[in-house]
């Protein structure tokens, strides 16, 4: 199953609702393109909703890290929302859990972005 992205705006924050698999190939490219599109449109506050991501591999993890650094280098913020247990465990193992700002609730995540 490939990855799908749905984009919406809430209080000036761009939320990317991702579903499917983030793996080498299509999923990784899709997330990279989606983040670039958001930045190209002038928004640099991005919330990645991973609630429907059922699988991620090392390439997908790398893509999340690349998205994080790309957005940060543009002066913006990227946060993660609704990690599944599998994704949570992988970020723990790779010590990335403390790198990302991770939220379990959308309203809390939106409020956590700088104004």
């Amino acid at each position, binding site marked *: 199953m490939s990855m799908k992205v749905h984009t919406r705006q809430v209080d000036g924050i761009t939320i990317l609702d991702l579903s499917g698999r983030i793996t*080498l190939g299509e999923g990784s490219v899709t997330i990279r393109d989606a983040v670039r599109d958001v930045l190209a449109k002038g928004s640099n506050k991005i919330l990645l909703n991973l609630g429907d991501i059922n699988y991620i591999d090392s390439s997908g993890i790398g893509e999340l890290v690349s998205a994080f650094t790309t957005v940060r280098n543009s002066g913006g913020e990227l946060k993660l929302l609704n990690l599944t247990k599998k994704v949570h465990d992988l970020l723990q193992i790779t010590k990335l859990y403390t790198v990302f700002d991770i939220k379990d609730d959308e309203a809390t995540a939106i409020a956590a972005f700088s104004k």
Partner: protein
Amino acid sequence: MADSITSRVSFTLDSSLESVDKVEQTAEQYAKQAGFDEDTVPHIAMAVREAAVNAVLHGNAYDKQKQIHAAFETTTDSLIIRISDEGPGLDPEGIPDPLAPENILRGSGRGIFLIRAFMDEVNFRQLNPGTEMTLIKHRTPAQPGT
């Protein structure tokens, strides 16, 4: 008790992401058949997927003239998976530690780390040409003194 083989299969596949998917699916099937629990099966499947990605991407560099080889073996003690490529060879000692502060924000380089995290033993053997990676997961925890 002798560590006898109970099941075995091997494939030779082209250097593609479809091959990676097939190897991953076979790993999941073998892990289930070997009786691993529902938390361990996806870990084994992911480790094997990462090994296959390594062979296709870093070993054979998607070269259509080169193939990857995958062998799955269930013994009374372990699930053993061997993945090999026909690439230039891999120096496992030369892989940077992805947990080191200077590497934590790198966009790649976590595959071998995850394989080691999820399997009990990971061994590398240099072929001519290529690299063979052997992944082993024990079916029961090793008991002291056995």
